[in-house]
């Protein structure tokens, strides 16, 4: 499947780009993270501590063990600081 993967705040800075299109067979968010972290150091650095990260699937907050089937857009970012 082909996913739009988006990065925000320091995740974006660490990986060095705001979004990319990724072809993957990862069944879950965690599997996608493992796949990305294995790519390059900058990805490994960004995904080193999952407790410091949040994920949204198709613009809804989700969990790292959520399945990716049917998903088109995945976003990774730090805890939000709105308001």
């Amino acid at each position, binding site marked *: 499947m082909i996913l739009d993967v*988006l990065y*925000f*705040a*320091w995740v974006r800075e660490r990986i060095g780009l705001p979004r990319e299109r990724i072809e993957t067979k990862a069944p879950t968010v965690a599997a996608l993270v493992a796949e990305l972290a294995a790519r390059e150091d900058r990805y490994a650095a960004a995904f080193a501590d999952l407790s410091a990260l949040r994920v*949204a699937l198709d*613009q*809804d*907050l989700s969990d790292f063990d959520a399945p990716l089937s049917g998903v088109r857009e995945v*976003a990774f*970012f*730090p*805890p*939000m*600081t*709105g*308001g």
Partner: protein
Amino acid sequence: MTVRVQEELFDLGAETAGFAARASGAGAVVTFTGLVRDVPGGLSGMEIEHYPGMTEKALTAIRAEAMARWSLADALIIHRYGQLRPGDLIMMVATASRHRADAFAAAEFLMDYLKSRAPFWKNERVGSDSAWVAARDEDEAALSRWQD
């Protein structure tokens, strides 16, 4: 519009007076306004990043949840993104209800959810350094009081 995400400044006075005038049958209006606070060392600026598309969706859902939980005549959320300076308005919420308890509770609920569940990230610049504002444990803890 009851949910607005925008780069430009909003007019706090006009928004508050307009909201109260539209909700005048309600009797009680609460507003919260967030402003860019200066920091030790002097803040040269703050940039607010957001997630276009998800932001509007999240704010609309948070507002709908507040309208469902309390007896509200109306609720408004305005949140800015982009480059801000110390003292600038960041965002506001307004709630209107018959009795004050609902308007107060709903405004606090909106703020707690905005702080930790709306996709905004603040980056502060002090001199030539910049740093992402860390989420506060108190903000995450504040959410727990709204769980059933």
